[in-house]
């Protein structure tokens, strides 16, 4: 992306597209942060905020769709432009999905307030921060076209998967120890799964960034063998 296009309005449109994705990324980060505050600090105002903000992410995703479709039609992009615009559709979808997971966590956090508290909430908070850092790094990496930073996110996904597996076992133990916590533990299990999915989408974005910059895909086999 070093040189400018002969047609300057093409550069302007691409900048707008990237900025819209950056805005969507920032919102997704805030949503995940809000959901974690609702979960770990029982901050119900944050939970409500997350629930009402979700529509803005949907709207931004749609805006990215429209911009990308328009660019395909007007510019018939090639090479790095083609990759950037095609991947913008996928990245905005990843970010919108991340928003959905944050919203789902906020909903469960509200319900958990009425339940007996469970130890696992602290571990979930740690997993949440890991995922939050991945998301924030991958959004930065995208804006800065920094594949190296993106790859560091990609490698951290294995850690999230391990975290999820151990949390799963931990939560099952609590259910067995005290069946009165069953309902709360089911919510916590879903939250753990949601966080794991957020990590997957952050990893997807890192893969897409790699494709945008280098034009080839990174081998996904790692996630299966890990």
């Amino acid at each position, binding site marked *: 992306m070093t040189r400018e296009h002969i047609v300057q309005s093409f550069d302007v449109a691409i900048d707008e597209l990237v900025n819209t994705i950056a805005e969507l990324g920032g919102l997704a980060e805030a949503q995940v942060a809000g959901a974690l505050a609702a979960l770990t600090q029982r901050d119900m105002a944050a939970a409500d905020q997350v629930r009402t903000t979700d529509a803005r992410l949907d709207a931004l995703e749609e805006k990215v769709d429209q911009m990308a479709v328009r660019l395909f039609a007007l510019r018939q992009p*090639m090479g790095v432009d083609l990759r950037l615009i095609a991947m913008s559709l996928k990245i905005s979808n990843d970010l919108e999905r991340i928003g959905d997971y944050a919203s789902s966590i906020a909903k469960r956090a509200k319900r958990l307030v009425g339940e007996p508290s469970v130890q696992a909430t602290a571990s979930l908070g740690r997993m949440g921060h890991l995922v939050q850092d991945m998301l924030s790094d991958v959004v930065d990496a995208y804006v800065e076209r920094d594949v190296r930073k993106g790859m560091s996110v990609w490698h951290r996904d294995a850690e999230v998967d391990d975290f999820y597996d151990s949390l799963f076992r931990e939560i099952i133990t609590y259910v067995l120890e005290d069946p009165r916590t069953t309902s709360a533990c089911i919510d916590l299990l879903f939250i753990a799964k949601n966080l794991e999915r957020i990590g997957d989408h952050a990893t997807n974005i890192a893969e897409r960034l790699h494709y945008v910059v280098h034009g*080839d895909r*990174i081998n996904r086999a790692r996630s299966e063998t890990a």
Partner: protein
Amino acid sequence: MSEAVRAEAPTASRPAIAEVRESKMRTRHVDLWYGAKQALFDVDLDINANEVTALIGPSGCGKSTYLRCLNRMNDTIDICRTEGDIRLDGEDIYDRSVDVVELRARVGMVFQKPNPFPKSIYDNVAYGPRIHGLVGTKAELDALVEESLTRAALWGEVKDRLADPGNGLSGGQQQRLCIARAIAVGPEVILMDEPCSALDPIATAHIEELIDDLKREFTIVIVTHSMQQAARVSQRTAFFHLGKLIEVGETDDIFTSPQQQMTQDYITGRFG
């Protein structure tokens, strides 16, 4: 980091596609001068059989010049001097024993501006077979004219007015007539120099459809200034710049992930 990751991918057994394909024409170390001015520099390029190879690059980069080397059309330009090795099915086409008229029947050409002879539609197509003595009887010639026009996707539009002048047809029809004329002498390779640049989008679509059909029988090399057209019609694309071949590869790769920065800049409209 990505290299380390990529190394895990299974790569061993699959041979590169290019190795499997047969090359119809092969050029090595082609240098060309117009007088003192060098227009081609050390061009090495293989043209695969039954494929469409697109030549792209900015105006004046030598696409037409290179194309004209492939059937020695440059011989008609006095100041032009060609060096290097150019082979058709392994035979050196610049060898003294080669009959240039016969070579141009084997390697036909279609130009930018449709250029039918000032003759009837029928005679435009019949002309080549007649001078090459390809047919004996009138019935055979009729059959060859019909077959050529059919393969050029023009027969249905002209069968009732074969005696009308060729230059009375629309631009797109004239171009298909020129293609029929090239086909009639039984070529193996068809060279096309910006064959659609004088045509409207519908006529262009007809020619592109035709090119896709023709590659089953012929090997096609097309010069085009439209990258979208190159992407649509070709299997391989060669990018020229200032008389040099900068990059050649699978068309899908060239337009999504070219290897050379110069190719990238050109196809994305960032040039110069």
